[in-house]
């Protein structure tokens, strides 16, 4: 049986990304394996340490940089994380200096907000209503 065990996000700097995704967002580092000049670097949610890993993938491919930049300029998040209480998380992250391109807003069965991960991406936070 095939299993989805990892999903990736391109980051402009792995060390900066690790700092943001662990110290600010609250994930836990799971794997750090040196691979040439970069690393296989993954984080997981503290509550889902056996779950899908997020790979902080170094942005080294020029065409991908164009795609990433276009998404960012349109305010389109490259992925989405679930939270239990969006308003609480929004306030917590704002206090830590995180920039949001979209404040919490209801949209049908969800409430969403969009933050800047400082590594080239917008990330959507989603609370199911």
């Amino acid at each position: 049986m095939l299993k989805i065990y990892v999903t990736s996000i391109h980051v402009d700097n792995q060390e900066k990304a690790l700092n943001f995704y662990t110290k600010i967002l609250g994930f836990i580092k799971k794997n750090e394996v040196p691979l040439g000049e970069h690393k296989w670097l993954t984080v997981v949610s503290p509550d889902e340490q056996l779950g899908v890993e997020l790979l902080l993938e170094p942005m080294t491919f020029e065409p991908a940089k164009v795609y990433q930049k276009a998404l960012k300029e349109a305010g389109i998040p490259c992925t989405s994380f679930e939270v239990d209480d969006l308003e609480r998380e929004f306030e917590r992250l704002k206090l830590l200096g995180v920039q949001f391109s979209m404040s919490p807003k209801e949209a049908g069965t969800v409430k969403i907000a969009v933050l800047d991960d400082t590594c080239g991406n917008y990330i959507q936070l989603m609370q199911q209503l």
Partner: protein
Amino acid sequence: MPIKTENMPNTNKTFFEAEIDKIYESGPFSRQMYLQVRQSKHFMELYYMNKLELDDLANAAFLSRFHYVRVFKRMYGLTPRVYLRNLRLNKAKDLIKNGISITTVCFDIGYESPSTFSSVFKKCTGYSPKEYQQLHSAI
């Protein structure tokens, strides 16, 4: 960075935010309908440990059974029955991780039969409750 598009004069909304607005303003359901169905989902979150019938859920949304199932699936992408099963399993995972015995977990989340609980848990997580308990005791 907020950008302007042809359809977005004098706004600071990003393209993404404008698309979100468009989708939900032109959607098939009224805000009131969303509130009603969300209320039934909240009902499940409060009473998942009890025996819940479809009529209870439909009543919580002030809809007929048939209409309720159809609307819930359209909104959430799965049926109320599957949503309730997933909700119970997520609660089960939390309780098992916190060291509660598997039999206690089974009854605490609204299952009446440990064998049914084990079989559903294995089918949905890939692990039996016992295996899941062992994995988490090792973390």
